[in-house]
């Protein structure tokens, strides 16, 4: 593996990673990716390490992806969900986490519905903490796999125009991607109804438009965000029919984009709402490449926070 030093204990958000850190993680991930193509998809790199997957919010993709990543590196991975943990008995998050640490866990991967949950654990634990999505705050491993996918297809993010469309206000993926994409030199434009654009989002370095065509025009990458039906109850939109008509991505709208546009979606996809099925499954879609790169990025993160090359050498 690479000999570069990575000294971060935790991966909490994209803001705390430099462009160099991101490049190192992606370079590492590209090497990791090759392991997954082998017939025997396992290396002994993290043998004897314990990785706890601490998931307080429903997740299929991210949890499975981290689990596979840990196993491919030979770490012992244990999954805990909110319903099976002592949280249901009233134990606090910090207490549960301290107990897990007392069992000598090396890395704690946490998914939680409250923003800042990962920061809170990182502050009080000696174990490494990887944020697998906290509230509407951050989802760094998702942003890293998205950047990896774009870099793979386009060579570099420098100067690319990336449109992120949908409910930005409830999206940790959008926040982490704005931070990540702009750090790597891309221009990010956000589109969606004004109700879904959180106050001051432009201070993160993205521009905002309420017209999807404007965002798509000249875009190299279009990322669609999932629209959750229950947001109608808080009056964020009038209904799926109008949303699909005004803000949905379809073949017609795609004409405004560049010829070699990439269509991305962090999943799970609401087919027929934010994206039409033909576009989701069409030639520009890299949705499954994202998932594939997810395992590689998470292998890289587990490896790097565990001490990277130094420990691998001593193994």
């Amino acid at each position, binding site marked *: 593996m690479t000999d570069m030093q990575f000294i971060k204990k935790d991966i909490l958000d994209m803001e705390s990673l430099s462009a160099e850190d991101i490049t190192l993680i992606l370079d590492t991930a590209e090497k990791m990716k090759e392991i997954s193509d082998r017939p025997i998809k396992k290396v002994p790199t993290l043998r004897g390490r314990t990785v706890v997957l601490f998931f307080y919010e429903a997740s299929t993709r991210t949890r499975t992806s981290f689990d596979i990543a840990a196993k491919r590196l030979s770490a012992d991975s244990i999954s805990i969900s909110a319903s099976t943990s002592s949280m249901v008995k009233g134990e606090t998050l910090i207490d549960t986490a301290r107990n897990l640490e007392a069992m000598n866990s090396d890395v704690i991967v946490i998914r939680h519905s*409250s*923003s800042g949950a990962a920061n809170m654990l990182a502050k009080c634990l000696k174990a490494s903490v990887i944020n697998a999505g*906290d509230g509407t705050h951050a989802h760094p491993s998702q942003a890293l796999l998205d950047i990896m996918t774009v870099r793979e297809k386009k060579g570099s993010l420098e100067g690319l125009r990336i449109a992120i469309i949908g409910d930005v206000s409830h999206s940790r993926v959008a926040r982490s991607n704005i931070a990540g994409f702009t750090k790597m030199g891309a221009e990010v434009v956000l589109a969606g109804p004004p109700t879904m654009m959180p106050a001051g989002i432009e201070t993160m370095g993205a521009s905002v438009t309420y017209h999807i065509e404007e965002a798509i025009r000249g875009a190299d990458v279009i990322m669609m965000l999932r629209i959750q039906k229950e947001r109608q109850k808080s009056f964020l939109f009038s209904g799926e029919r109008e949303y699909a008509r005004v803000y949905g991505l379809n073949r017609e709208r795609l004409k405004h984009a560049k010829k070699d546009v990439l269509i991305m979606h962090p999943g799970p996809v609401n087919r027929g709402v934010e994206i039409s099925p033909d576009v989701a499954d069409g030639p520009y879609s890299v949705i499954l490449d994202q998932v594939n790169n997810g395992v590689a990025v998470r292998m890289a993160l587990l490896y790097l926070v565990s001490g990277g090359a130094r420990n691998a050498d001593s193994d």
Partner: protein
Amino acid sequence: MRILIKGGKVIDPGRYDGIADILIENGKILEIGPDLGSRLSALGSRYSEPGTQCPAPSTQHPVPSTQHPVPSTQYPEPRIIDASGKIVVPGLIDMHVHLREPGHEYKETIESGCRAAVHGGFTAICPMPNTDPVNDNGAITAYILKKAQEANTARVCPVAAVSKGLEGKGLCEYGELKDAGAVALSDDGRPVMNSQLMRRALEYAKGFGMLVISHCEDLELAGSGVMNEGAFATRMGLHGIPNAAESVMVMRDIALCELTRSRLHIAHVSTKESVEAIRAAKKRGASVTAETAPHYFTLTEDAVGEYDTHAKMNPPLRSAADREAVLEGLADGTLDVIATDHAPHSSLEKEVEFDHAANGIIGLETSLSLSLRLVEKGILSLSSLVEKMAINPARILGLEKSLTPGSAADITLIDPDFGYTADACKFQSRSRNTPFDGWEMKGRAILTMVGGVIVFEV
């Protein structure tokens, strides 16, 4: 028992401002004037006649009494408190605190809260009714007063509920509450969303001469918000509470105050728009008063930092522009009162996810030091600070508070140069939830006297 507070700078706004002695006897102020010490023998145990209460210094002809000591049986030697270089003010009042008793004694008791109060220089405090059970009937009010009497430190002036159980559905029995000793009415923490109920509460309270204190918050607009709405909240992924969640209710309540011609006091003002609405209402002659808390004029939303739950309160810490407007409101008199909204919470409520953390911070033991910064910065004169922390709350609540001879000796001695580091572990409050832990402070209360009894001394 006589006490002589000697040589302090006495500030009793509108009545006294200068170096003077204060002689206290049997819990009351007997005399105030320059150099009383030298003529103690001449000062009888009867109060002076009106007109001699605030004598001009030039008319004084001190009689040397040291050579002719008065027999101790008649006038025992007073305890002398040297107040030179110190500031002597009417006892401070915090008209907005939460004492958590009955119901949540692990956070605070009436006893610990009163102890915190006198350590912070407060001689009287007004606990809000959101206890468990709620202070919405005479029995609970009486219980609170009994506990306060047992604690025997600060005076406790309970605020009772506007609506039964703070549920916003029916009026409490204001007559019974008043008879039991409640000084005002508020559904603090559970704003009265029903405008008709608020209108009737204002009218009904007027019949008893009672004040309604409004916690102005539109719960629907505040929604699931946990901090000020804006770029900071967006970056942190925290749901925001817009300024309008407060100001639309400030404007509604002012409209209802003008409609009913009742008195209204607006609690914990945090936004620019609220300050402007109150300023305009006062200009129109509405009988509205308002308070803000030290954290709103000291901190901004930036204090949330990396999800610090000690910076989570309701209303939330706002932007720098709001903080500036609050300071202007204090300076021009739009905001009449500094009150802490002392809200004790244990680590159970604070060492949790930011979304789940309880709102509020303790304030009794940091309020005066933080407020003195405003004097240091020239935003308030010492005299107007005393107005906002003693005189105005007393006037608004109809309590007695001055250094006039004959009045109860509720006095706070302030050392404006007392430097110290705030240490939450040493606080008298049962709770430690303060963002000011570790702050370098200058100036604090060094002696607190309630009814002539020294209840706290550094």
